């Protein structure tokens, strides 16, 4: 019996993995990837709710589409900035990107 909670659990786990990635990856692209994992987790939520709570309305699915789209947009900009960082800092290791502090 796979119910809603199974999917929610899965998504939560994925979400937390994403968070862990954000917290620990040193590579900027790695962090971006982790963020994508978080978006995916959210999407699982939406789709699962859509399936179990509002099977006839497709709101959840539509939401997921939008999230995917925007994730793509964000990834684009993100990667552009990463490239910029790479040019300036000669590396994309976020540990070293800390001119500004305190």
């Amino acid at each position: 019996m796979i119910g809603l909670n199974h999917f929610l659990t899965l998504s939560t786990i994925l979400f937390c993995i994403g968070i862990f990635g954000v917290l620990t990856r040193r590579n900027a692209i790695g962090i971006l990837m982790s963020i994508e994992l978080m978006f995916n987790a959210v999407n699982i939520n939406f789709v699962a709710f859509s399936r179990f709570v509002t099977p006839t309305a497709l709101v959840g699915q539509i939401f997921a589409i939008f999230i995917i789209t925007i994730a793509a947009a964000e990834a684009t900009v993100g990667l552009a900035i990463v490239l910029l960082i790479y040019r300036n800092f000669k590396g994309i290791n976020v540990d070293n990107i800390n001119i500004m502090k305190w």
Partner: protein
Amino acid sequence: MLTGVSEAVYYILAAIIIGSGVMVVSMKNIFHSALFLVLCFFGVAGIYILLSAEFIAAVQVLIYVGAITILMIFAIMLTARLYSAQIKQSNEQVVPGLIIVSALLVITIFALSKTTWKLSSQAPETQTVAEIGKLLMTTYVLPFEIVSVVLLSALIGAIVIARRD
């Protein structure tokens, strides 16, 4: 409720997703991470199918696997010196990060499992593609338009930023 084969599929997919997700965040080589990310996205797409959201699954594959991941791989190639990837890929926050994340995980799962959801027993919509298309052009036309502007601005922005002067 899913039973039988679906149940088994669910577990397999979940294992793939979680396993590859963990790989994504822990691989030493960022390039390998990217590959596992692809795997993970596929797994998620499988979940969508399991949830009878085939259209979303397709979108997932197209956009995520087809666009985003490829983009990332390009970016990795452009930025990282691939095979000098012996340098540590994770910072000192692993242990505290683990603690925080597991705390969050436990609480969230606990909270969600304690919640009674208002489940519906209706059969899921089957004509999803057409229905979604219709909705996007009617009820959700406004966000749809806005998102196009988002894409436009992301496009322009990315060009402005990424281009060498």
